[in-house]
């Protein structure tokens, strides 16, 4: 109880929460990136979900969180054949690559990466992993490779906010960072029994 009270007080005391995506910030961002090509304009604005996440420092109130969850769930496009598993070896390549969408990445020289290792532990073999996200070691094994978990994994990669409102993970599918086929490959890396994520290699 005391913790909740302290949290409320600390949230109320933070000036950033009072005017999170104010007109001043919008104007400063527009002026601060003057070389942005016309089709990059959406990158300089925040959609409703991002505004709500920024405003709450990623801790939205319960009703806001529910609204975000619903809104983001609606963005998910599923594979037409309902097969969520691709190729784990292609998934591993994707997990290693941070290529794509930086202003030095145009014209594109290769497919965008998912850069999973920047934030997550996956295979044992790769020791250079980040800790911004939870460890995904033995991800499929821990879920008994269940079909429902395979689908849920696809959804989390496509749009993490459908499961965790204001997750810090990119909305890889909804923001068109990765294609449906690429997301299936990442699902296979996590959920296939042959994947080194689950064989402990």
């Amino acid at each position, binding site marked *: 109880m005391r913790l909740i009270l302290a949290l409320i007080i600390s949230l109320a005391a933070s000036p950033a929460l009072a005017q999170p995506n104010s007109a001043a910030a919008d104007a400063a961002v527009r002026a*601060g*990136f003057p070389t942005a090509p016309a089709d990059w304009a959406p*990158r300089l604005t925040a959609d409703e979900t991002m505004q709500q996440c920024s405003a709450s420092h990623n801790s939205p109130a319960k009703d806001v969180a529910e609204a975000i969850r619903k809104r983001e769930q609606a963005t998910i496009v599923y594979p037409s054949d309902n097969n969520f598993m691709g190729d784990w070896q292609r998934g591993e390549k994707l997990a290693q690559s941070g290529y794509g*969408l930086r202003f030095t990445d145009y014209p594109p020289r290769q497919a965008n990466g998912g850069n999973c290792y920047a*934030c997550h532990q996956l295979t044992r073999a790769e*020791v250079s992993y*980040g800790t911004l996200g939870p460890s995904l070691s033995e991800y499929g094994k821990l879920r008994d490779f269940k079909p429902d978990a395979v689908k849920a994994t696809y959804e989390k990669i496509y749009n993490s906010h459908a499961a965790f409102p204001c997750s810090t993970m990119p909305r890889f599918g909804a923001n068109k960072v990765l294609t449906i086929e690429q997301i299936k490959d990442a699902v296979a890396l996590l959920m296939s029994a042959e994947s080194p994520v689950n064989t402990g290699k």
Partner: protein
Amino acid sequence: MRRLGLFAALAIALAPAAFAQDADTEKAIEKYRAMLKEDPWSNPGYLDVDRGEALWTTKAGPKNASFEQCDLGKGPGKVEGAFAELPRYFADADRVMDVETRLLWCRETLQGLSTADYVKRPHPAGGQPVKEIGAIAVYVASKSAGQKFAAKLDQPKEKDVVALGETLFYRRQGPFDFACATCHAEQGLRIRLQGLPQLAQKKEAAKVIGEWPAYRVSTTHVMTMQHRLLDCYWQMRLPELQMGSEASVALIAFLTKQADGGEISAPGLKR
């Protein structure tokens, strides 16, 4: 000489560190940092401190003037301790400025050289030396080394800029939905093996902000704070942050406020 040779060997060994980023590399850099503490003058960033000092007194531009009449906030030509009180509001420009933005202002007003031209390519590519304003900035910053950050940032316009910087720090945008806070709001986290400072917390901000501008081993040049921010936004998949823009100054003002009381040790040494 032996030290220089050792440095050269380390620089060669560490050059690919940006890509390899393995634990051995981090250990080697730690060793290198420890060596530098024994003799701080062996930091290659001091080459640009010297270059910046020379540029400060060199006449240039259509007005054939040096920076010697540049007012960094403590009066024309006063460099000692000026960096410790930046960013601040400057009445002549009617805006808050960080050190680099102020130097661009002096370059334009004193020397008659165009800021608009300079900011088209303001930062060096990997392996290239820091550009002219960056060299002067690291010289100016080094003249506050050992002092504590004491930017007041208490005037109404300064407070507005700090508030804007805080808003931008937490603002999520771009195709990855990243904010500065995505990587810098929690303690002890890392990208791959690279540790991330928790800049949302004053104690940790006070430890690291004072190291900038810093010599970067992986790119073998001095990197300024304006350049550092551009590089973060590049990774965040945003366009090029313009040097001297209101947004850039606001973030630097917010970070400096977070680092209030922290000791300045520029030029620092970074991966």
